[in-house]
């Protein structure tokens, strides 16, 4: 699903200030029926993350936290079964899972002698049953299952998607009889930067030495971050390579081909390998 910049912008335009709920996602699918769901979700998620990154700070001022906490307390006093925290998050345009974390932290600060460690917070978010307050536990859980961009469940889904595509790619490589070193093997050898696969025999067509699988949509922001953190680093060490954005990418980003970073939305079909024997 390779989109032009214009197509992408049209989708991104529809995502401004949309809460990360399943309802929003449903509407988006209706709006762009021709796009694949996975691509839409990926774009949605990335756009929302960009939005949160931009606004993150304003939700973390002590005044803001205090005000959210008071609103939460007032809300649950009135009706503990109502989606107080979720509504609050949507109202102030913040991710429900992150709002849950914020309130949980604040709650624990109040109820525990020592400030809660990050790992305790994370553990409680993963399993809200550990939260000492039953009402808060339910509120937090509600936030987490209703957030389609943040939270431990979403993280796990993303991780699983990434893993699945790596497995998929590995199978394809095996099927094509391309010998490779995977990330674990590279790490064991002490490589400092490890793409998903390094091909031991470079592939012709465009010559590539490594392949990186990305189970997401390649938008400008994420692509540039990946270029900086990963792709150029791989190039610096192994030469030209291939990035597969399984959920597509913005066409215009594929501008480093000549220099040695090739983008694709699927596994290339026209692979030519070095002939081992000269007939």
């Amino acid at each position: 699903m390779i989109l032009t910049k214009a197509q992408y912008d049209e989708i991104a335009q529809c995502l401004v200030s949309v809460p990360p709920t399943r309802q929003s996602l449903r509407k988006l699918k209706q709006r762009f029926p021709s796009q694949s769901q996975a691509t839409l979700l990926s774009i949605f998620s990335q756009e929302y993350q960009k939005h949160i990154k931009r606004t993150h700070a304003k939700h973390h001022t002590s005044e803001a936290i205090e005000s959210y906490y008071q609103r939460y307390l007032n809300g649950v006093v009135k009706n503990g079964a109502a989606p107080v925290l979720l509504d609050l998050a949507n109202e102030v345009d913040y991710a429900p899972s992150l709002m849950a974390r914020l309130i949980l932290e604040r709650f624990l600060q109040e109820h525990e002698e020592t400030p809660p460690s990050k790992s305790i917070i994370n553990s409680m978010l993963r399993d809200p049953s550990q939260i000492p307050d039953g009402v808060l536990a339910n509120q937090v859980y509600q936030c987490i299952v209703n957030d389609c961009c943040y939270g431990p469940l979403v993280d796990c889904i993303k991780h699983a998607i990434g893993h699945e595509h790596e497995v998929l790619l590995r199978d394809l490589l095996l099927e094509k009889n391309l010998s490779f070193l995977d990330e674990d093997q590279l790490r064991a050898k002490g490589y400092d930067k490890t793409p998903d696969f390094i091909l031991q025999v470079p592939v012709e067509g465009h010559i590539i030495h490594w392949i990186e699988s990305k189970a997401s949509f390649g938008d400008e922001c994420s692509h540039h971050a990946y270029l900086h953190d990963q792709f150029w680093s791989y190039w610096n060490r192994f030469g030209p390579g291939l990035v597969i954005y399984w959920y597509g990418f913005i066409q215009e980003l594929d501008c480093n081909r000549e220099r040695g970073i090739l983008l694709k939305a699927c596994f290339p079909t026209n692979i030519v390998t070095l002939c081992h024997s000269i007939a």
Partner: protein
Amino acid sequence: MAAVLESLLREEVSVAAVVRWIARSTQGSEDNAGEAAALSSLRALRKEFVPFLLNFLREQSSRVLPQGPPTPAKTPGASAALPGRPGGPPRGSRGARSQLFPPTEAQSTAAEAPLARRGGRRRGPGPARERGGRGLEEGVSGESLPGAGGRRLRGSGSPSRPSLTLSDPPNLSNLEEFPPVGSVPPGPTGTKPSRRINPTPVSEERSLSKPKTCFTSPPISCVPSSQPSALDTSPWGLGLPPGCRSLQEEREMLRKERSKQLQQSPTPTCPTPELGSPLPSRTGSLTDEPADPARVSSRQRLELVALVYSSCIAENLVPNLFLELFFVFQLLTARRMVTAKDSDPELSPAVLDSLESPLFQSIHDCVFFAVQVLECHFQVLSNLDKGTLKLLAENERLLCFSPALQGRLRAAYEGSVAKVSLVMPPSTQAVSFQPETDNRANFSSDRAFHTFKKQRDVFYEVLREWEDHHEEPGWDFEKGLGSRIRAMMGQLSAACSHSHFVRLFQKQLLQMCQSPGGAGGTVLGEAPDVLSMLGADKLGRLWRLQERLMAPQSSGGPCPPPTFPGCQGFFRDFILSASSFQFNQHLMDSLSLKIQELNGLALPQHEPNDEDGESDVDWQGERKQFAVVLLSLRLLAKFLGFVAFLPYRGPEPPPTGELQDSILALRSQVPPVLDVRTLLQRGLQARRAVLTVPWLVEFLSFADHVVPLLEYYRDIFTLLLRLHRSLVLSQESEGKMCFLNKLLLLAVLGWLFQIPTVPEDLFFLEEGPSYAFEVDTVAPEHGLDNAPVVDQQLLYTCCPYIGELRKLLASWVSGSSGRSGGFMRKITPTTTTSLGAQPSQTSQGLQAQLAQAFFHNQPPSLRRTVEFVAERIGSNCVKHIKATLVADLVRQAESLLQEQLVTQGEEGGDPAQLLEILCSQLCPHGAQALALGREFCQRKSPGAVRALLPEETPAAVLSSAENIAVGLATEKACAWLSANITALIRREVKAAVSRTLRAQGPEPAARGERRGCSRACEHHAPLPSHLISEIKDVLSLAVGPRDPDEGVSPEHLEQLLGQLGQTLRCRQFLCPPAEQHLAKCSVELASLLVADQIPILGPPAQYRLERGQARRLLHMLLSLWKEDFQGPVPLQLLLSPRNVGLLADTRPREWDLLLFLLRELVEKGLMGRMEIEACLGSLHQAQWPGDFAEELATLSNLFLAEPHLPEPQLRACELVQPNRGTVLAQS
């Protein structure tokens, strides 16, 4: 000096005698008495003859070449005056010049002589001072006044020189001060440090001094005496003796003739563009003056001077062979004599009379002279590249003046294979990551490792940015990248990081600047072949087109300053911007090491007997290898010189006097960064000058002004000068250096002698004869110097400025005047051979000697093959041992460790102690490595040797070669193994131990043995991510908030659980975290089922899930938990207050599903009764509404009342009993 020339021209002395006189300080026995007498009186001036001659020729040609490329000549008098130097009369220059000529012109002399004395130049006997250069002895005596007569600024060409001002009366003889009208040297004048003699203008003084002089005329009585100041006064050629009358008349006639011609030409005689621009009209609107052999004036004189000049060139008495050739080519391609009248009208009518110069009176003279000289240097010409040869052979003037030479050149062209290719600059390729040198084990700490990781990326980021932007106008390296580079360098705290970075830097440097871009570049010699079919006119246009296309990469004239072309610029700027002394030091260390390594590389030596076809093929390889080594060395040495002398170089003029003395005293204490003197001496002794000298020249070209004054470096220069003198091209014989090798050395040395920091006097002051260069008698008979390792490709690659010759000729063809800048690219080599490492040869015994003897009589390729095989097999052997023996030991270590852990319990003891125990058990096994290694080498080497040697190799030779390869490989492998095997085992075991211990750590269950999917599985199960996502949706629907129309169908739930089963059974795509989340989600789903919280789609009446459906779904879940999940399932969450609390919200509360679930859990062994009891017990502690707490207590009691081990039938009958829980709840 003039006197010598005079004697020569009067045939009092022979040319041979003169040359002998110049070249040697004493007369040869072959000189006759008359000659000896004539010359001995001039002994004091001997050294000055050559500079005089060179300057004389430049001066004489000034009217012919006003617009051509500047012709630098490195002679003591060559320095131009500083354009903006302190006012006042230019003291030294005038004085010096006037010394040369007899005082016949009283008018100017009167004013000039005292001034000259005032300038303190009385001692300076230097010749040819007319350029305002400093005196010959100044550099040594240190007497020169700063600023006065000092060296001109680099690159100050003539254009900015003050033109004649009449208010500066006496100094009319100084041609430096009175540049030729219209002589505007082209090109980027600010960047050319090489000294040059610009065409010497006709001074106004001369224009006033009629009648014109003739260079044959100065009477011998005017020969300079030992009192130099007595010679002050008249410039060369004044004082016309009566004998020259006829010549004078002849010249008058010529002038008339020429002016007639000029009037006939359609354009003005001196169009304005010609005045300001170095480019004459290219269009041919100005017709070039045709050269006609019949119209040459004074043939004999020209012949004589040409002969002397040629002899000086041939004897290497001139500093730069190619510069002289360039000058001669300029004469050959001169377009027309220039009239100066239009350029400075105020000076007329006097200037009109200054047009004549004595030696070259016409284009015909110039061409005649040039052809005469070229005839003497056919051998050099024939070794130029094919393109140049073609242009020469096609030159119509050459054909006209010397058909014989033209014929020889054409033959040489036709036989030439010296195509020089212009290869496009290589594209950037990164240095690949090599675990052996780059992984964590090579760093002192994790931090250093990660810092370097980042630095590598920053380095390439910077490099890419440079590639993208450096050609953009206005982009500045320092502004664009400086701070980022410094920030990066700032992070290199550990010394070891510096060395890592320097290694990367150096490798990248070699890779980018030395490796070729690949084949397929244009070939210099080829283009004209194709183009000649198009005819000369089109050819010219195409040349111009090509020139335009290739313009950016000018080599900067025949004597360009040391530059950093192309990618080299990046590395230079990087060093400058980094301005890190640690980096520079590490870089110098690394460069020095690499230079020593490459310089000492045993390059195969030529075997003169071996001249069959095979050796040809071999020589291709040898040459390639030599070229790669040489070019690498030059690149490294250039950067070493650059960095090493960086702290001492600056824009300020060199110090003089006491300051200089103190600096010298200081600097002589500093040891050289690399002992180049020893390397040079060794190189000369071992006859490897052709390898050592070119890189040494690169190194020295960056020396600062003080360096040549230091004794250490003076020695080097002395050696180089002697070498230069000894490289007489015409002397070719067995045991001498190959011609092209000599040519390369002459070219690079000549270039070095033009570098401004090399003192001007160095070349001419050196006493040639008495220190004649001697080759060490113990030197090997055949060194690298005797091998044909240099070809034209390498020559032109090392000395791109030789290509200026071709450019000059091409511009003649195209009708455009040659100018600096142009189409000549930096030529990069086409070889890609990597440098073979020299195999270690530790064994010095008889065997080694025998092996040497064996190789001696075999072709060099055999030796290379054997050494290569030994090297590779030895290395493979080590790898093999690592992969087999060491890996086995590591596995043993792991199982031993497991045992230890079992016996010692969870803690397993101190890891360090464990490691010691393991190593003490395992390291002794390392001894096997040697035996295994020996076996490996024996098994592998012979086959490899056999495969690589020719089929026809005699059996005995083959078996010897195999044995030697086995021996060498074994030696190499065993040497490494015996030194390192224990450490290697230790390291690997240590890594294994830490791996195992880590695996023991946090999640032992997750690390447990996992079942894969069955072999028949086609992996079509839904993806885990999809399932998590689906279940999450159900959970979010159940938890709410939801729209009224939202819900799930029971079928969907059933399907979902079915898919979950499939996914769990096909484990292809499942990773542990995904499974954990699936487990947790399934438990949550069960809780929601139990609490009947799942909104069901359908008619409103069926808003709740049927009991039976719920039970069926719970059964599916139970089965999944029991059968399919391989990781732990957090079933206790079913009884967490939060999930049990879900029941509190339902009215009426229904407990039967929970009770059912709990029983099933126990039944299936998923949870123990005790565990459930504990959970139920803790539930009581939570705060519940009163009625809920009661019901909960009842449930507990009911559950506890069950028999501990229920029978299967009981279970079955319970299943059919409906609503038991409801009853319970209602009771």
